[in-house]
């Protein structure tokens, strides 16, 4: 049984999957050997390294099918077939790990990028409609890679859901071509004793627009990174996070936008609710390259702390390498005000009802990118039935 992932194991895996040399090189471009030893640490000691190593490479069986990807009417190619078609292979070769730095930076994504067993290419058609991208993991501890390509000028809504057993690690890279519009809603659900590791890359071309709403909830471990790259003029990337961490949840959230060129725009906004003994580490990065003149970036992280034992750890970074930009950030944390509780109770509500009402409205601003119907759905996901139960006087 293999107990660690090294260059040799990745080579063996790539050979077993009959991959061309360039795909092996892609794997190695994001692999950092030191990441393997850090895997347990960055995932809050849940011991992912040992689990991944032992499950994926047990008895040299590299043919394990870790995950299935479906996406309505979009064309979904497993890498088995994609790499055999010249045009598709060129597409994968061009965009896969185009910006590897952030993938290498986090141990789980580095290992996943190097050792994924299932790779998919999803070609979104030129249609103004909603697609549901579903990644279903069939095996415990699977590692999946998915490249989603939007054609130029497409206007697409994507609803991204991951169904996985206890532990799953996935890298999803979205290519938003010139003048395309991506509206993405992502659902990240970590039940107690579950671990979900997600790395999203968003590559926005000239005049492209990506509006991303990420809803994260649960009592387990979530390591979620979303990195946007504004590659060309007038590209715009907006990322909103709505986070509800309860019980012993441990969330490691990263949202980043890199402005690589002039006149690009970004906005990162998060509303986070922490209860019980949940711990949320949220790192936000806005990076303005020396070529990003005339760009603007903004990030704001706001937290509502519902328990004296919850831990909130915001790190909003700015890295600005040119002067002709507008960039700012802010962080605030607060608890439910006594005044509000008092007023609610004077109107006959219980403490639980007041809290549920407040949380419900607290998420509104983080969900402003999506339709009211979607907002309702996301809130239901974030809060479960809590709100309805709280409203119900019989409850």
């Amino acid at each position, binding site marked *: 049984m293999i107990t660690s992932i090294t260059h040799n194991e990745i080579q063996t895996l790539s050979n077993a999957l009959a991959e061309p040399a360039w795909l092996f090189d892609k794997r190695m471009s994001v692999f950092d050997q030191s990441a393997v030893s850090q895997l347990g640490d960055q995932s809050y000691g849940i011991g992912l390294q040992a689990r991944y190593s032992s499950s994926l490479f047990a008895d040299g069986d590299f043919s394990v099918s870790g995950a299935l990807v479906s996406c309505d009417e979009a064309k979904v190619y497993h890498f088995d077939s994609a790499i055999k078609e010249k045009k598709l292979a060129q597409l994968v070769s061009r965009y896969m790990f185009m910006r590897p730095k952030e993938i290498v930076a986090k141990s789980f994504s580095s290992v996943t990028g190097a050792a994924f067993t299932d790779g998919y290419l999803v070609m979104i058609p030129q249609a103004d409609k909603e697609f549901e991208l579903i990644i279903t993991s069939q095996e415990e501890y699977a590692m999946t890679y998915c490249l989603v390509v939007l054609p130029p000028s497409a206007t697409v809504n994507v609803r991204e859901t991951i169904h996985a057993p206890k532990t799953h690690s996935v890298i999803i890279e979205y290519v938003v071509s010139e003048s395309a519009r991506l509206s993405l809603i992502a659902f990240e659900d970590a039940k107690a004793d579950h671990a979900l590791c997600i790395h999203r890359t968003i590559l926005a071309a000239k005049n492209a627009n990506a509006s991303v709403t990420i809803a994260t909830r649960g009592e387990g471990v979530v390591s979620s990174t979303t990195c946007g790259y504004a590659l060309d003029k007038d590209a715009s990337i907006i990322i909103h996070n709505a986070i509800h961490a309860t019980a012993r949840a441990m969330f490691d959230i990263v949202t980043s936008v890199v402005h690589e060129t002039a006149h690009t725009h970004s906005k990162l906004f998060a509303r986070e609710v922490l209860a019980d003994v949940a711990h949320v580490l949220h790192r936000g990065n806005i990076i303005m390259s020396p070529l990003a003149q005339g760009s603007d970036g903004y990030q704001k992280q706001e937290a509502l702390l519902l328990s004296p034992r919850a*831990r909130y750890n915001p790190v*909003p970074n700015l890295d600005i390498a*040119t002067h*002709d930009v507008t960039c*700012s950030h802010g962080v*605030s*944390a607060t608890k439910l005000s006594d005044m509000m509780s008092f007023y609610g109770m004077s109107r006959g509500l219980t403490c639980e009802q007041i809290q549920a009402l407040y949380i419900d409205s607290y998420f509104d601003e983080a969900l402003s990118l999506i339709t009211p119907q979607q907002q309702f759905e996301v809130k239901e996901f974030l809060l479960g039935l809590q709100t309805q139960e709280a409203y119900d006087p019989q409850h």
Partner: protein
Amino acid sequence: MNDFSTTQNRELYEHADADHSRLKSRPGLSEEIVKLISSQKNEPEWMLQKRLAGFALHQKTAMPTWGPNLTALNLDEIVYFVRPDTQEASDWGKVPDEIKKTFERLGIPQAEREVLGGVGAQYDSDVVYHSLKKELSDKGVIFENMDVAVQKYPELVKEYFMTQCVPINDHKFIMIHAAAWSGGTFIYVPKGVKVELPLQAYFRMNAYAGGQFEHTLIIADEGSELHYIEGCSAPRYNSNSLHAGCVEIFVKKNARVRYSSIENWSKNTYNLNTKRALVDEGGVIEWVNGNMGSGVTMLYPASILRGRGARSDSLGIAFAGAGQHQDTGSKVIHVAPETKSTITAKSISKDGGIASYRGYVRVAPTAINSSVAVECDALLLDPQSVSQTYPTMLLETDAVDMAHEARVGKIGDEEIFYLMSRGMTQEQATQMVVAGFIEPIVKSLPLEYALELNKLIELEMEGSVG
């Protein structure tokens, strides 16, 4: 102080005296040099053991890899101990002419006469001048050279020196400091005594490839008040210098300490300094820092608020010009309930300089009903310059009110246009906007120092337009 009506120039700070040292260790730090420093100062055994423990830790610890690039700093080339050819005096007349001239150029004796309650002047590794106004010594205020304090107040120093505030294993440069420290200031303000006039120490590094490791230990007893000012400068050589000082401040119950420093080391100096305060119930620590010089600065004054109602206010300004990386910020750890902290950091980057704000605020579970406000603003004067903001916050209780804001931008064209329409040149207009930008910091300094800071900014801004 200097004649502020005339334009300053860098020569004032970067002029080098001839080397008249009476003892100069060979480059690099070794156990032998550590023992030499200790024996030269006739130190007690416990201090030698502390130095040796620091040295042993330093040998086992790698250089930090985060923050600014320190690869060009060769610790084996630094001269860790240089004794000037003079003894400490309490009369400027007894200080050797050349050294006195240097301090006169920097305006220290004049400032002592006009606005200070006491002055210490350190030249390389030794304090060459020290004095305190009689009315303060009569009230029991102790203002001493740190080396002298080890001999005169051993119990007090043993209790507070690199124990609970900045332990010797804190980080790589504190380990070096523990091994090689020399000179610095010891201040004790007795209960209830308010020191009306500021006390000042000025640190001057003259030796080629020199290192300065002064130690400042301030104990403000219950209900006392103190304003302490530090200034620093060094000549510019073609070899790197290292400044790794340490400041430990104990703010006892209901005491108040304001610590101001204007660091103006030459641009080949690595300024890797450590400043920390332990603040008890109702105590207040105020940090005012102006970082103008140095090639690389890593400086994050820290406050540990361990008594109920303790407060920390930190004001910082960093100016990063060509070839400079100013990595500055502030740290606050709230441990006790009802504690309060504010951090205001401003930076200006010019000619490709890099200004980084690196902050850390932690509110422990015990620090209920505390509040934190952090504000950092950065001004970029040209397309080559860089601004970085890395604030980290950790809240471990819900009963906290926390707000953080940061803005990065350039000077607005409208502001410059308006000022130019009132008859100013573009350079004057830019200087005026920059002066307004740093006003909150300047306002908190005594007038003479505010003028010096303004003049330094003006000096750095010269030629910024056109």
